[in-house]
């Protein structure tokens, strides 16, 4: 069973989590339809290391995790606060 380490609950089976998809830079409210369509629908879909939103379903807790999509490994996970401290922007 694959394990994801939740910053709140510790290591848990990955089936307890939902993936919220890659973190993308959110456009300004008035950025226009084309930019918003790109933000909502278009994906890098990278084969490699990705930074994503993850959610622990039973405790309703969102956090940030880094994974390698080629090898199915979770590299690290952190709270949103820790991620922002490292310069991350939602």
């Amino acid at each position, binding site marked *: *069973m*694959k394990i994801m380490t939740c910053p709140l609950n510790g290591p848990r089976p*990955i*089936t307890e989590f*939902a*993936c919220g*998809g890659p973190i993308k830079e959110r456009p300004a409210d008035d950025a226009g*339809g*084309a930019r918003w*369509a*790109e933000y*909502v*629908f*278009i*994906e*890098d*879909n*990278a*084969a490699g290391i*990705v930074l*994503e939103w993850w959610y622990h379903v039973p405790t309703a807790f969102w956090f940030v995790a880094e*994974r390698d*999509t*080629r*090898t*199915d490994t979770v590299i690290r996970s952190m709270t949103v606060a820790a991620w922002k401290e490292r310069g991350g922007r939602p």
Partner: protein
Amino acid sequence: MVLSLLRYGLRRRHVPWRVIPPTPDRFKPSYDVVIVGGGGHALAAAYYLAHRHDITNVAVVERGWLAGGNTARNTAIIRSNYLTPEGVQFYDQSVRLWRTISNDLGINVMVSERGHLTLAHTDAAIRTMRWRAEVNKHYGVASEVVGPAEIAALCPELNLSHEVRYPVLGALYHPPGGIARHDAVAWGYAMGAAARGVEIHQMTEVTGFDIDHGRVTGVRTTRGTMRTGRVLQAVAGNSSRVAALAGFRLPIRTVPLQACVSEPVKPFLDTVIVSGSLHVYISQTARGEFVMGGATDPYALYAQRSTLEFKETLFSDMLELFPQLAHMKMLRQWAGLADMTPDFSPVMGLTPVENYFIDSGWGTWGFKATPVCGLTMAATVATGKPHALIEGFALDRFARFDQIGERGAASVGS
């Protein structure tokens, strides 16, 4: 039969069945069309380019071996009972092509129309099925909502008891639904294309493109560069990676889809059974094996690994539908990479790069579309304009907020 088998088995020098010509040692000075990918879609497009459009100076470039991708990893379900007018008309054309494909290609594709039942366990599912049945009938596709009595007659083996977690309330019955022998489809198209002069380069990976003023002029591979006027990309789970080489992005996320097959037993299931709510589907092959699959994995991944979770979730629900499978042994389990779009419809046609065409976003449902994808993409590549049947599937529909929402009909059951 027994004698010829014995003779074959005892023969000293076995001559392999070689219908697909070996990879040529070198490239031609230039090609009219280079097709990236060697799956069913790519090979079908090569076949129709040669047969319908007389374009034979074509190279198919596959990084592994023919049909090593999703083409021979799928559960081979064919149907056309989709939800949107665009989808229903497109898949119906494919069902028509399947009916004559064995004769057309001169290889037994073993297409078997055996009836397809999508089970409903909730009132909401019944409602979507009525909607689907009406859209289907409007376009002349056989499709009917049936109740438990009809289901019992069509599939007596199915557990219709109410002593389960999700009792069966009804089903969408689609008589033309069925299965086919998936690898034979790829070989048939490859044979037919090669007979007309199409070159097939296996073990040749595309690593980049030459693009001049927004127009593609060459395809870089691990064996050198091919000069070409046009490119067709048909690489399923690797769509985003190859498109990135050409400099554009897609509304696609690559997610593994897993399946498994049981030991062979005497036939007892002659329909294809799907449950969208339980995320399971099953059919029995001509060889007697049960082919089973479920929903896609829960997160994006390029690793074609198998998991225990897949088996656990699949069988916890499958055994409610078919308790008699409890004693069966599993033979094989595997995964393929599904190129999932947000609206569960494909992305086909033109791209931001001139003379560069795409056939992608086939996710978990593209096997049945192999013939019609080949046909429409060949026409698109030959004329430079999207074929009428694929206009709705254009890449720019997302920028226009004009999606073709097939989730209700495509999410499970392939």
